[in-house]
């Protein structure tokens, strides 16, 4: 998923900021493993929490008294203390620390090791609540609480197992905890737990649908409610655990995918949410994406898009966002009529995470032309353009990404203009988020092919803004800006003068030929190919040494680079001594090899370059020596007119030189 690293870093920065505030939000999202260095964070968290003694609320002391009874009481006193403790607002930090500060966590965890079911339940009820606090989680993990809870997953009592799973779900929200659970076989136990209720739930679904089953015993409503809770808590635990890559693999090996597929069909939203949450987390792995498709889960994901539950819809959209990387999945989504509900979700302006998920899903789905067509019919383009004013970065990135894909269709380029979409796009060029910049350039690259759009872009100084992006240190931004510059130069009237007026502009773009990035090189060559069509500019870039730099790139194998490089060379030949210069820079011989490439686009542009170069006799000789004639002869009969014409032209120049030599020899 192409979420910018920047977004993740900003989230992390926000988390560090929150440490000093006394409010802790319940929905505290931590960045996924791969990008969080946790050693510094852990130290900081261990220090935190020693509150100023004077402003502790009375609850703090009352709770500490209860912990005293937990420590010194028998089972009866313990139960009374535990039940009483639950009356306090355990979401309040002061209460949580009250427990921790007098060794309450140790006692609670020790209770889990006893034989007493009631005490274990009472203890877990408290641990479940306070483990929502990140500092408490770490303490619980430090005290070996996770190992104990994993053991409880295999006990008989349903309530106990359910509470253990739910508490694990809360504690395993940081890296080390996730590892501990895996190392203690926790994942297999959780899968086992879910398997045990799966059958009962299936029967219930069948009863619900009126399908007769073969079960002998009646299944009470009370049992069903318990099993639904178990499924919810087990799935939530897996969701928390799935953020770690190794856990994703372990889960797959334990057979979690068919299990999730079954649970996904449940009519209970409380089960579906953590199931889909887990799926979308795992869908970053290609193996999961494949399995999601082959297990038929795309159908259920689309179904759940239509639910009335915002959270469920968001997770489904995110899952689709990730899965739509694959073409077959994109086709399935369309087949199951999943594009319609996605567009409908765009009206949720206030729910930003939902909006981001929906726009993301639409973005990836639009990679397929057939899907774009449906989006068109649903007037999605107009809705997307309306979102260009949204303040949320993630929403913008995805929206622009989607528009960039859709703008590959000429009709949509016009729609975008008519809904006022062009000028906001140009304005986005001044932003700082790299992914957003890349997407914006892609969108403009498409839009600039439309004559009416170009005038807007020009009027808003779009070309200069694109050119400034060439100075951006990020290579993807540079490349996408260069790609976008090409159609601008091509379609803007008097673009040559415009470009000349950018101070240092031509020098800048030529200097990018020193880049190590293939895409930057290819895109810059393409741009130079357009720039060089203006004679004055061609003179300027020649002065800046464009010829030797282009020549230096001829030894590359990349077809995209070759194609654009040869276009540039072809254009640059048309000035002064450049043909001769290319020759002396040994650019000619390598080009002959390009004709052997399997990519026919490369042939046409190479032939163009060779034709131009062949106007210089020395170049003809080199070409001839490298066996170009035979290769070009094969292309003379091509259906591609450009290729045909240039192959013929090149051959004829070579032949003319040969004839002239003959004549000179004979004279």
């Amino acid at each position: 998923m192409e979420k910018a690293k920047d977004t993740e870093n900003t989230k992390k920065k926000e988390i560090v900021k929150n440490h000093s505030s006394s409010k802790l939000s319940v929905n505290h999202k931590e960045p996924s493993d791969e990008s969080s260095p946790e050693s510094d964070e852990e130290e900081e968290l261990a220090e935190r929490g020693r509150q100023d003694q004077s402003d502790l609320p009375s609850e703090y002391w009352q709770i500490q008294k209860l912990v005293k009874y937990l420590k010194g009481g028998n089972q009866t006193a313990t139960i009374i203390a535990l039940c009483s403790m639950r009356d306090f607002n355990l979401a309040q930090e002061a209460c949580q620390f009250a427990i921790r500060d007098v060794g309450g966590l140790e006692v609670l965890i020790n209770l889990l090791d006893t034989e007493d079911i009631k005490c274990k339940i009472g203890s877990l009820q408290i641990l479940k609540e306070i483990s929502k606090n990140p500092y408490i989680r770490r303490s619980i993990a430090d005290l070996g609480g996770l190992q104990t809870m994993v053991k409880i997953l295999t006990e008989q009592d349903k309530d106990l197992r359910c509470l253990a799973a739910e508490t694990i779900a809360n504690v395993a929200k940081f890296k080390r905890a996730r590892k501990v659970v895996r190392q203690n076989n926790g994942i297999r136990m959780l899968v086992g737990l879910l398997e045990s209720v799966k059958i009962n739930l299936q029967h219930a679904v069948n009863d619900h649908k009126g399908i007769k089953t073969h079960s002998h015993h009646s299944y009470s409503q009370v049992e069903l409610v318990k099993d639904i809770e178990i499924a919810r808590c087990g799935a939530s635990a897996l969701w928390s655990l799935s953020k770690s890559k190794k856990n994703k693999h372990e889960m797959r090996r334990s057979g979690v995918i068919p299990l999730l597929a079954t649970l996904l069909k449940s009519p209970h939203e409380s089960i579906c949410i953590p199931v889909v949450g887990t799926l979308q987390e795992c869908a970053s792995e290609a193996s999961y994406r494949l399995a999601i498709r082959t297990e038929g889960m795309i159908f259920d994901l689309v179904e759940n898009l239509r639910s009335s539950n915002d959270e469920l819809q968001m997770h489904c959209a995110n899952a689709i966002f990730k899965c739509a990387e694959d073409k077959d999945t994109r086709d399935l989504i369309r087949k199951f009529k999943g594009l319609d509900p996605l567009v409908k979700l765009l009206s949720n302006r206030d729910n930003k995470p939902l909006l981001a998920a929906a726009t993301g899903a639409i973005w990836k789905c639009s990679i397929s032309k057939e899907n774009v067509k449906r989006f068109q019919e649903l007037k999605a383009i107009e809705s997307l353009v309306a979102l260009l004013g949204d303040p949320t970065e993630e929403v913008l990135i995805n929206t622009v990404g989607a528009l960039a894909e859709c703008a590959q269709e000429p009709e949509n380029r016009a729609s975008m203009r008519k809904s006022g979409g062009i000028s906001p796009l140009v304005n986005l060029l001044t932003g700082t988020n790299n992914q957003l910049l890349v997407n914006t350039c892609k969108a403009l690259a498409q839009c600039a092919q439309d004559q009416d759009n170009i005038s807007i872009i020009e009027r808003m100084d779009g070309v200069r803004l694109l050119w400034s992006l060439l100075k951006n240190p990020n290579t993807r931004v540079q490349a996408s800006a260069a790609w976008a510059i090409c159609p601008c130069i091509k379609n803007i009237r008097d673009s040559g003068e415009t470009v000349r007026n950018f101070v240092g502009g031509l020098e800048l773009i030529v200097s990018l030929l020193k880049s190590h990035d293939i895409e930057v090189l290819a895109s810059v060559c393409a741009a130079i190919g357009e720039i060089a069509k203006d004679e004055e500019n061609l003179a300027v870039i020649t002065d800046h040494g464009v010829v030797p730099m282009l020549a230096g790139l001829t030894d590359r194998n990349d077809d995209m680079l070759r194609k654009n490089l040869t276009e540039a060379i072809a254009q640059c030949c048309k000035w002064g001594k450049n043909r001769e210069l290319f020759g002396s820079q040994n650019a000619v011989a390598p080009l002959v090899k390009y004709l052997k490439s399997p990519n026919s686009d490369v042939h046409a542009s190479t032939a163009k370059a060779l034709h131009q170069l062949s106007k210089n006799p020395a170049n003809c000789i080199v070409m001839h020596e490298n066996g170009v004639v035979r290769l070009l002869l094969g292309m003379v009969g091509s259906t591609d007119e450009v290729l045909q014409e240039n192959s013929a032209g090149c051959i004829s120049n070579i032949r003319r030189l040969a004839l002239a030599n003959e004549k000179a020899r004979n004279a």
Partner: protein
Amino acid sequence: MTTAHHITRKAVQVAIDDLCAKKVHFGKNEIEALLNIYKTITKNQDRMDRLKFRDVLHNSFDMTDDILMDRVFRAFDRDNDGYISMTEWVEGLSIFLRGTHEEKIRYAFTVYDLNGDGYISREEMFQMLKTSIIKQPSEEDPDEGIKDLVEIALKKMDKDHDSRLSFQDFHDSVLADPLLLECFGQCLPDHKRKMAFESTFKKTNTFY
């Protein structure tokens, strides 16, 4: 006070019919098996005294609290004649082992209401919780801790704020938090011992 008699087959039959009519949670075969156990304990006498009953509570269910064991006996002994008859035995076990939630709540309240006046008072709670705190910091008066615990329990469960627990208070509190059912001490068997006892009279083809 009546004298004990040997148990006749007719008496057993009468008891079984009586119990079936009362809709206890046992099948006919199970009732018969339970009455056999009764006969073994009482050596075929038609009444079980307090001592013998407490032995059962201690040996089969590992109960140790004197006050509570006494109260359980009282709860079983419905006609309050100081002996548990065959019928009282099975009726009591019906709730003890297989009671519905409501039945157990009613039973527990009866046990905890030491003087049977329909309320669990502070003093009664103090009595029952007297031995519940094992470790205390040495300077503290041990009674302080118990009194405090009583206040905590009262605060938690006294819904009508009359400083004592009525049946309604107790009932509603337990419904809200099932863990509170035996909050003043164990008066029902734990799962392991319950299963063990059940296996002594249950036939394999009766339903769960």
